[in-house]
């Protein structure tokens, strides 16, 4: 029983103590922010900014905490409010023994050094202690005060602000300043005077920074510190750190990144359109060259001035260290930089413009006096009203830095883009005493940025108009960085920021077929084909490693949709298979048909043989027995009987000729063509002599013009000429002056043979029938013939791989033209 009670008691105590320690996360955490402590915290455009601010904002976001900021102008004010329950934490505070008594600190998350700085041009002394006779600058309430004291440097000037500390050094009010290295360098960088400073003694002290929680707020401390410990181990924290402490804001870096952007897009463009890349590269080159020239020019000027400055310094060193002298020296120091400096004494309304300030606008030293009007009157009309209002607002409520960009009219009438950065000093009443700052001519950068943005717009338009897929992803994280419209459209959602394997393949881990390793090993593009199951699409893919704007290697992919191609390919394969099948069937058919034809030919052969043999016998008998009959009848025969017997005889002879012709015709297909070179003249003469009687009777004239030999089978072409010539004679028989013209000549590798007559001709509408077997276009009683001659000619010409054409006009004549290959090959 006792044991149970004790357990309950322990649990109760534990529970109660937990409740007591728990921090109510609905409570707003109030954060004290110094307005002028860059890069940790400062106010710009009325809002707190800086590393510590970012850090704590992201931290709150991650743990879902509510924040509010309380702004302070000095550290003194912050410390004074410590116990007034105005704020809960200071987000970034160096840990010192004194402070540990006043605040609760978590584990340090950042370490930095306190260093001592001198002017670049001055000669450094060997040890910090050696500066005991020099004036040393420190920031009020800063650890530098302690370090100076510790090293016996008692001749110190305590400055209120970082800017006054910095200018105190440059103006030779002091010869050494002791300050936190990152803070001082950041400010110098902002004012573009890093090259005027020298770190003489590095790492005088190491300071650890952490979040400071007011002493009476232990539950908040216990709540925050473990979370901060884990937060500083995240990539998010590292990104914030890098964004504030790596030099991304200087001009060289800007140039570099501009160059990188153009490089990345050049390589993208390469895939899309060559013309655009031409313009791009041309512009980039021209500008890079321009900037280079400028840098060299500036370098030369700077060196010359540095030298001059050093000479002057030694001279000035000898002079009294009065304020007036110091101002002069400051001016000299300032002139050395490419940045124009102005210093506005608001109380006395006097503004100082450095020589460089004037020369940026193209003016000589004496051409501009020390009035504010010289500045305001040169503002671009479009910028003037706004900028003057900005200045007025700032003067009324000065805090942090004042950074503006505007245009100013140069002496030659052109406008220059100016980047103004300024700071201010307050008097004892907390009112603004003076403002000072720098002018930098950023016209070229501005123009180039504009040009670049136009080019980028053009590029983006082109890439988006590109009908195929383009995307870029990070090789290590698989995150998609860029996607063109076609890709977004295909995915039906914007994939930027998503993992490529998730967005494209709908997978939860990198694809097994990922080509990243291949393209990292490859020099050029890697081309492959891919089928995406999740969207049922075939792609022709081009992968390549390119350098992205920020310098990292990224994966560039261009994927062409091949679905249509695949479809066509499949159709083609299918058609091919069908065609093959058809071919096979056709082959079989042809084979079967050939067999049939062979059989038919053989049958025809034996048929023709039988016909010629058996049909001729009865004719012979008719003829023979009529003869016998005639001699038997002898004298008793009448005229009419003689005529009858004559007709019978003639008919049977005609029938015999017909049979012979038919047989010849049927044999033409089998005849072996034996081509030889021969002169048609010889054949023609032979045939003409054969028909000599008729030619003489009818008075037919021949006009023969032989210009070409022919390669033909002699026997077969004898038939050709015999048929054509006999036809010509036959159908010219009724003409008044029958003329038969025969020509041969060569034309385009063909031997041409023409046989023309001026006989009865034929109607061209029957031209198609003229070469048919037993086709006769004339009345058979008028012209003898079997109607098989031209069919025979046609077949012989075809067997010689030639062709024959017939041209006729009724009662005017006919013309036959044969084309056969000019050589036997």
């Amino acid at each position, binding site marked *: 029983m006792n044991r149970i009670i004790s357990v309950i008691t322990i649990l109760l105590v534990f529970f109660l103590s937990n409740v007591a320690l728990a921090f109510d996360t609905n409570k707003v955490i109030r954060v004290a922010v110094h307005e002028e402590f860059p890069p940790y915290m400062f106010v710009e455009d009325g809002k707190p900014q800086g590393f510590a601010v970012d850090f704590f904002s992201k931290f709150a976001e991650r743990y879902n905490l509510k924040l509010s900021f309380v702004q302070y102008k000095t550290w003194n004010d912050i410390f004074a409010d410590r116990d007034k329950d105005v704020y809960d934490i200071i987000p970034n505070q160096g840990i010192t023994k004194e402070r540990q008594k006043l605040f609760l600190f978590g584990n340090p998350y950042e370490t930095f050094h306190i260093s001592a700085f001198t002017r670049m041009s001055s000669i450094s002394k060997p040890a910090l202690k050696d500066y005991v006779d020099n004036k040393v600058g420190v920031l009020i309430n800063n650890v530098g005060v302690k370090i100076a004291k510790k090293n016996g440097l008692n001749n110190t000037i305590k400055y209120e602000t970082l800017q006054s500390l910095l200018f105190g050094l440059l103006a030779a009010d002091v010869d050494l300043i002791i300050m936190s290295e990152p803070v001082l360098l950041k400010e110098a960088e902002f004012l573009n005077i890093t090259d005027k400073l020298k770190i003489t003694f590095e790492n005088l002290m190491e300071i650890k920074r952490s979040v400071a929680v007011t002493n009476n707020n232990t539950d908040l401390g216990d709540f925050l510190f473990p979370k901060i410990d884990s937060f500083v181990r995240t990539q998010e924290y590292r990104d914030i750190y890098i964004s504030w402490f790596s030099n991304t804001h200087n001009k060289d870096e800007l140039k570099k990144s501009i160059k990188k952007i153009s490089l990345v897009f050049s390589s993208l463009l390469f895939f899309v359109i060559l013309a655009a890349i031409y313009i791009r590269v041309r512009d980039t080159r021209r500008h890079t060259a321009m900037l280079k020239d400028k840098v060299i020019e500036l370098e030369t000027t700077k060196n010359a001035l540095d030298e001059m400055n050093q000479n002057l310094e030694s001279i000035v060193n000898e002079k009294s260290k009065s304020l007036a002298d110091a101002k002069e020296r400051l001016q000299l120091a300032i002139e050395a930089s490419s940045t124009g400096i102005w210093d506005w004494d608001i109380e006395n309304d006097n503004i100082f413009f450095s020589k460089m300030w004037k020369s940026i606008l193209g003016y000589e030293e004496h051409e501009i006096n020390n009035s504010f009007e010289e500045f305001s009157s040169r503002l671009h009309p479009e910028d003037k009203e706004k900028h003057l209002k900005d200045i007025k607002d700032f003067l009324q409520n000065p805090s942090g830095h004042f950074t503006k960009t505007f245009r100013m009219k140069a002496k030659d009438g052109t406008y220059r883009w100016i980047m103004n950065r300024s700071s201010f000093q307050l008097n004892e009443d907390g009112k603004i005493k003076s403002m000072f700052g720098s002018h930098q001519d950023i016209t070229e950068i501005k123009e180039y940025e504009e040009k670049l943005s136009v080019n980028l717009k053009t590029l983006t338009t082109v890439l988006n108009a590109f009908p195929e897929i383009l995307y870029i992803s990070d090789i290590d994280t698989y995150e998609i960085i860029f996607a063109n419209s076609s890709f977004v459209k295909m995915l039906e959602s914007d994939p930027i920021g998503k993992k490529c394997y998730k967005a494209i393949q709908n997978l939860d881990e990198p694809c097994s077929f990922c080509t990243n390793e291949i393209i990292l090993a490859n020099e050029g593009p890697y081309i492959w084909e891919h089928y995406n199951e999740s969207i049922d699409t075939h792609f022709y893919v081009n992968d390549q490693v390119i350098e992205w704007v920020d310098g990292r290697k990224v994966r560039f992919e261009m994927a062409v949709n091949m679905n249509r191609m695949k479809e066509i390919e499949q159709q083609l394969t299918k058609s091919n298979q069908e065609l093959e099948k058809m071919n096979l069937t056709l082959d079989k058919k042809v084979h079967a048909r050939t067999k049939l034809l062979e059989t038919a030919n053989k049958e025809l052969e034996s048929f023709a043989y039988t016909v*010629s*043999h058996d049909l001729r016998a009865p004719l012979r*008998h008719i*003829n023979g027995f009529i003869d016998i009959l005639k001699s038997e009848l002898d004298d008793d025969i009448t005229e009419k009987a003689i005529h009858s017997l004559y007709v019978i005889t003639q008919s049977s002879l005609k029938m015999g000729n017909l049979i012979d012709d038919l047989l010849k015709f049927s044999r033409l297909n089998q005849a072996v063509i034996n081509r030889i070179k021969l002169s048609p003249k010889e054949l023609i003469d032979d045939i003409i002599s054969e028909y000599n009687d008729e030619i003489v009777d009818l008075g037919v004239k021949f006009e023969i013009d032989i210009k070409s030999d022919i390669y033909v089978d002699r026997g077969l072409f004898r038939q050709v000429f015999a048929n054509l010539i006999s036809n010509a004679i036959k159908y010219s028989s009724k003409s008044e002056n029958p003329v038969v013209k025969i020509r041969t000549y060569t034309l385009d590798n063909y031997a041409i043979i023409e046989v023309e007559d001026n006989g009865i001709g034929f109607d061209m509408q029957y031209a198609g029938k003229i070469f048919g077997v037993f086709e006769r276009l004339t009345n058979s009683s008028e012209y003898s013939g079997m109607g098989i001659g031209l069919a025979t000619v046609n077949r012989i010409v075809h067997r010689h791989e030639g062709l024959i054409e017939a041209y006729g006009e009724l009662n005017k004549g006919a013309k036959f033209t044969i084309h056969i290959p000019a050589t036997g090959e």
Partner: protein
Amino acid sequence: MLHDKRILLVDDDPFDRELISESLKDAGIVNKIDFANDGVEAIEYLFERGLNKPILVLLDIKMPRLGGMEVLKRIKDDNDLKIIPVVMLTSSKEDVDVYKSYEYQANGFVCKPVNFSDFQDVVKRIGLYWCLSNETAF
């Protein structure tokens, strides 16, 4: 003695047989003409009947049962008969028949013309040539 020497006419066509013998008569050839209706009868006549050998064989190519070409081959393969002149007769003008005939050692080849006078002419020449030359030979 000439008339004792026979001519063997082998033809399946009776009209042709008649026209040929008529033509031979017209040509003044008086030799006795024996007929055979086809190749079988011709073989029988030449090899089995033991009669005097004919002085001339006129042999039609196209015949039923046994063709002229086969008969020619048998005659020319036989040592006793091969000296008998054989003239092939045909109705067709097929080159192949001519080649084959000479290949089988025919002594002559005649394409029976449709025109009777031409036919008579041809037969007459054959008859005279072979009969007369044979007469001197015998």
